[in-house]
């Protein structure tokens, strides 16, 4: 039996003593795209950042597995090198550090040594072209003064350069106009392989018109309350989330009874 690429087991997380995630379970196999939907404040971003190892979030229970390795206790850089990538909802500016040097340092960390400048240049140029980025972009400081669309494109560029096994996309569609959204979605689709898993966190159906998920999950109150196929996203688009709240309440009551 092949092991799953990525597995979240009964994950419980709190911030400053307040419980945010209340036992999340999710398995993602290589080649699958999963969408995680839900309203703001339901714990989606907490989940994405906990998976990446943000020091602010305290794991109080459960485990995270990547390609058979328990990464629950690893530092963010170790998770990155193990093959996990998070495209941030709000990428942080690093003034004075340009995109080229940042990407070189990241690639160096991943490869355990420098890449010949010539090869690096070819790779970067190619990836930037594919994301319709101008060359001048490379000499700008990381996310410093970037528009929302530029920030998200840089996230996708980093993903393309680092070629991770498992990709977490946290609200990558937020703040994008339709053209930027298409470019970003195209970047996600183009780099998708049968070896990669994707968890796409969003609260809009919109991006799912361009990036087709195999599975859709809905999160509420720190838990995945419903899972289904792509049709679930369409249903949410039509009906919103309220019916789910009722449904799960009933379920909970039923269980309690």
């Amino acid at each position: 039996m092949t092991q799953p690429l990525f597995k979240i087991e009964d994950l419980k997380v709190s911030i400053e003593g307040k419980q945010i995630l209340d036992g999340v379970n999710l398995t993602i196999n290589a080649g699958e795209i999963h969408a995680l939907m839900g309203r703001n404040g339901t714990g989606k971003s907490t989940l994405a950042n906990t998976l990446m190892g943000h020091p602010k979030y305290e794991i109080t229970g459960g485990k995270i597995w990547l390609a058979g390795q328990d990464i629950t206790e690893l530092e963010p850089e170790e998770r990155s090198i193990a093959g996990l990538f998070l495209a941030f909802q709000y990428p942080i500016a690093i003034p004075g550090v340009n995109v080229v040097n940042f990407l070189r340092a990241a690639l160096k960390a991943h490869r355990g040594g420098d890449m010949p400048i010539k090869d690096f240049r070819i790779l970067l140029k190619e990836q930037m072209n594919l994301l319709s980025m101008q060359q001048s972009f490379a000499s700008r400081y990381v996310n410093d003064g970037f528009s929302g669309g530029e920030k998200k494109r840089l996230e996708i560029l980093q993903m393309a350069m680092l070629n991770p096994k498992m990709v977490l996309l946290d609200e990558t569609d937020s703040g994008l106009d339709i053209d930027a959204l298409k470019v970003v979605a195209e970047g996600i689709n183009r780099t998708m392989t049968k070896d990669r898993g994707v968890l796409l966190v969003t609260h809009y159906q919109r991006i799912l018109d361009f990036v087709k998920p195999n599975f859709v999950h809905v999160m509420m109150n720190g838990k995945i309350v419903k899972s289904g196929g792509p049709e679930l996203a369409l249903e949410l688009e039509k009906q919103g989330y309220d019916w789910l709240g009722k449904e799960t309440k009933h379920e909970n009551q039923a269980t309690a009874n």
Partner: protein
Amino acid sequence: MTTIADISKDNVSKTAQTVGDPAWLKANRDAAWERYSATPYPTRKEELWKYTDLSRINWGKYAVGTTENVVLSTLEKDAAARGAIFCTLADALKKHPELVQKYLGRNTDTVNGKYAFENLAFTDRGFFCFVPKGVKITTPLHVETQSTQDGATLFPRTIVVLEEGAEATVFDQFTSPNAKDGVIGYTNARVELYVGQSARLHYLQMQNWHNGMLHLLEQHAELERDAYLSATTISLGGHISKSTIAAILKAPGAVSYLFGLGYGNDKQQFDHHTMQTHLAPNTTSDLLYKMAMNDRARSTYTGIITMTPDAQKADAYQSNKNLLLSKTARANTVPQLEILANDVRCTHGASVGTVEDEQLYYLESRGLSREVARDMIVHGFFEDLIGKLPEETLKNAVRKAVNDKLGTTIELEDIAL
């Protein structure tokens, strides 16, 4: 062995002999010696010495009469043919005594008291750069004053003169190539920059001494009508490093930029004092000093903008930014204004911050270790300042020196795509 503790007038004569003083210079030294002898060391009660305490320095550890290398780059042939001079101070005194006399000691301003007289009395090395009217030197001129010997004492003097319409870039470096661990030294340097009418001078000074150096430096720049000066001070080495940097805008239209960069670790102490002195109307001065301190290192920045009653319509800016990289690092910042004109613009600001956790997390999530992530943020902190240097070679020299000190191997040279 004579040390600073038992230095005497004999040493003045010896130094004069070694350098090859003309009579006028010997007389200057003797006069400086008299003032040196009569002046007590400054104490921490004095405003400018409040943060740097030298009262416990054992001057008996520093031997006088040290000979070490001063290495100069070569002047472009064309500029030399048109009368430009770039040579050691001793050579200049031999070949161009009248010219040197005109400038050496012309500016006698000092806030360093006894230390300034000490430099004047014992000047033992340095260089002279003279660019005549209208001559433009395109290649940066590089001087490397070295010190690696244990107990060394250096009294360098830098003199740069640009006549009307002249242009030059000078890289004045104090360095300790391959110095052994544990060596100590004392440097007391003076720099005089004369920027003539409509002349343009880029002056970059970098000290990356070994960590046993006590480094004192006093720099005065005089700017004539429409002159342009960009003077950058890079402070990396030494256990105590105190620099006083002045720009005196003497005539209308003069523009000066003062930039400073410091990175300290271990128990290093840095003290930068700047003076932007506007003596004439329509003068402009700008200043940016950026200091990053790690471990138990400490930085002090004190800066004063002075606008005399004649300095109407003058503009002055001053900004000091500090980045603390450990809980035990410290930064003091004391900006000061002295405005005696009523129609001027003057702004100043200071900040002390730490590395943001979210920045570290972002970089770490891309596979960078915490150390590399932090060093990258430090480099980024300095980069806008480094970007103000005029030549790519100078930018890379500074980046490399900072990189060497941080001890990481981040590639920072620009790669053209």
